[in-house]
């Protein structure tokens, strides 16, 4: 897998598609000219600028709020989009990614308002970006102008903890991606105190190459032998996600002697090809109060690859969030709770992607009484792997 192709996400032949949009823009210009009148407009219409939306006035505010966590100088995105000069060469790529539903990458079909860590991406924003990228990419007011010379006001910071300073910050050892390596996975183990956790976050040292991370709590070998859950995911980190702490009184349990296992997937974008790059990320721990209610995992799975599978809730729980296991990547997935009283609730409709694996935290805990069936429907793009699974984070009790 070529890192460049993977990260950019641009389908093969993108460059060829580029002028298609321009052609369309030209058709708009023609249509305008024909509808309104002939010559008066012509000298202006030649620019093929048909977008009433300009970069500085309309596009930049959207880019800052929706894209800049990755697409900024030093960000993990393969290009910054924060100046007109930066964004224009990618206009056709922006079109393709938006139309395909690849960007923003959260794969969510449900309303974003139902989740704590999803940011709405509105019909208006979609339309502004597509109109601008299809319609001649007008600049509006001059901006910094130079590539990389971006105005970062209002864009997310790459160097600050979104949840504030952690109670415990653990620097990981330095990792180096060699000159001739494009992607690599590194595992880090950190002994941590046996205190329940409200949140665990990661702050990359070199944001441009830290592509994703899984952070788990792993019990000691003898505890595992005694039946303690061997490893439990506490954070699925992807750039641009909004970390969510658990509510007060709730926590991920950390058994005595457990360690934190951090697996980072590093990936170079094309700017870093043929260069050795190092990273020293930090992990931040936010503790819950002692005695916090334990977040548990309820897993629905199919051993036989059947695209519809379910699990039944044995004791009443409140669902806090969910995440798909990598085997569901690329499928259109809906998760429905069928309660014993006959009511049904769609918990989520989404399209998980391995490279954007993250947790979806429900806005409010969802009550799943004893006997509720959690039904998962996966409509795959190709053939499904043999086993599929999905995890719900739940709290016991009503």
């Amino acid at each position, binding site marked *: 897998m070529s890192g460049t192709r993977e990260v950019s996400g641009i389908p093969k*032949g993108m*460059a*060829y*598609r*580029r*002028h*298609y*949009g*321009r*052609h*369309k823009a*030209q*058709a*708009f*210009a*023609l*249509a*305008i*000219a*024909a*509808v309104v009148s*002939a*010559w008066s407009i*012509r*000298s202006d*219409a*030649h*620019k*093929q600028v*048909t977008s*009433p939306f300009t970069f500085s006035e309309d596009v930049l505010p959207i880019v800052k709020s929706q894209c800049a966590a990755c697409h900024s100088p030093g960000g993990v995105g393969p290009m910054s989009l924060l100046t007109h000069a930066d964004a*224009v*060469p990618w206009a056709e790529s922006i*079109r393709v990614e*938006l*139309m*395909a*539903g690849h960007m923003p990458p959260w794969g*969510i*079909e*449900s*309303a*974003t*308002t*139902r989740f704590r860590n999803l940011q*709405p*991406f*509105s*019909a*208006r924003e*979609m*339309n502004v970006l*597509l109109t601008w990228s*299809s319609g*001649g990419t007008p600049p509006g007011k001059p901006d910094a102008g130079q590539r990389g010379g971006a105005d970062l006001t209002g864009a997310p910071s790459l160097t600050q903890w979104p949840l504030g300073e952690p109670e415990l910050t653990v620097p990981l050892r330095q990792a180096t991606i060699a000159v001739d390596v494009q992607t690599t996975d590194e595992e880090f183990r950190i002994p941590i105190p046996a205190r329940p956790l409200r949140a665990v976050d990661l702050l990359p040292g070199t944001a441009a190459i830290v592509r994703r991370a899984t952070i788990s709590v792993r019990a000691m070998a003898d505890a595992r032998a005694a039946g303690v859950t061997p490893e439990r995911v506490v954070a699925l980190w992807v750039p641009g996600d909004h970390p969510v702490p658990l509510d007060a009184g709730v926590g991920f349990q950390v058994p005595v002697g457990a360690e934190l296992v951090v697996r980072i997937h590093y990936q170079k974008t094309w700017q870093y090809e043929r260069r050795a790059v190092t990273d020293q990320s930090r992990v931040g721990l936010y503790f819950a109060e002692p005695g916090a209610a334990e977040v548990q995992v309820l897993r629905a799975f199919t051993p036989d690859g059947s695209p519809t599978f379910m699990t039944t809730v044995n004791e009443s729980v409140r669902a806090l969030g969910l995440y798909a296991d990598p085997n569901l990547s690329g499928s259109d997935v809906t998760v429905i709770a069928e309660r014993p009283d006959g009511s049904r609730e769609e918990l989520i409709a989404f399209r998980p992607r391995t490279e954007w694996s993250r947790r979806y935290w429900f806005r409010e805990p969802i009550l799943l009484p004893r006997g509720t069936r959690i039904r998962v429907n996966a409509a795959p793009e190709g053939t499904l792997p043999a086993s599929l699974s999905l995890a719900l984070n739940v709290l016991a009790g009503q």
Partner: protein
Amino acid sequence: MLLALFVAAGISAQRGDQVRLKPDTANKLPPVSMTCPMHPDVLEKQPGSCPICKMSLVPVRLDTSWICPIHTAVTSEKAGTCPICGRPLVEARVAVTWTCAAQPGIDRLEPGTCPDGTPTQQRRTLRPHGNHNPQHGGQFFMAADNWHHVEGAYPRAGVFRLYLYDDYTRPLAVAALKNVSARVVTNEQYDARTRTSTDVTAFPLRPSPDGAYLEARVTGVTFPATMTAKVKIKPDSPEYRFDFTFAAVTRDPAAGRSGRATSSNRPAVSGRATQSPPRTNTTATAAPALSGPVATPIPDTIPDILVLIKTRDGEIRDLIRQGNFAAVWVPAFQAKDLAVALEPRIGQLEPDARDAAEPALQRLVRFAWLLDSVGDLGNRQQIDEAYAGFARAVGDVARAFGGVK
């Protein structure tokens, strides 16, 4: 003559670097843009290099002209009819240069004086993708390579013709036509699981004796006739599919005046360049129009907006059924403008409906743009998939807002 014009276009590009750019305010010349010799869609205001291939940009003055869709040498500054065939002129993108009658090799960006002292004459040269109009009364599509174009015609019962063009909508050279392998499929089986089609009834397309087109004898065809050309431009090219629908036999306007304009098969791809959007039964009362090429009135109330969205959806469905893919973009854009206008009214909904409305409106906009994008390519499968997403979004929007009186 045509060839001479196109050769001149090349010269214009090469000579660009010799030309000094002047401010355009002094006269009414179309302003100078910078374009890439290899990527004509690249247009910048400033000199520089092509973002795709890094070649130095060259200056060009772009304008629109009225041309005859058949006799593209006929250009005019205003609408009218072709003096040769009488067909209405259509608009196309042209490059404007100045030349000399005695020395047609001269091709300048500025008007001036010829070596013999006479004033230079304006020359208007068709740009790539400047002409997406059918040349023979058929249906016109662009290949996914963004270079080749095809036109399918059904000139008489049992005869399917495929014309192939380059990026300037010039007929493909006979030598290039010999490399093309193509067939026309009148019946095929589609496997939804593997998303592949298998030919059931196919007829080979063979070059005509004069090399002007490929032709196949087809049998078992009734109107409206749907057939699919499957084309490999070169032996190592991917196979493109173009889905044609003919309501009746097509008439080639070049064959005589009788066929012009009244041909029922004239697809809206030319209509889009020449006319206002297809007539729609808009019943909305006075409302502010959006800015934009296909401005649609936005009614005041949610139910009235919903009615218009559903009407546009019906128009799209009909256009797709008729095989008129290239016209789909107009109602699709009108529908998405209506959807954007609905968005600020989400607050009037009950919480559950609000949750359903938010993603549905965004999907409606996204799939409208996708319909626009795949519309020109003529691949029914892509159009059907885009429309399925669009129609589902329209249904979800209608349900979410349906409770509002």
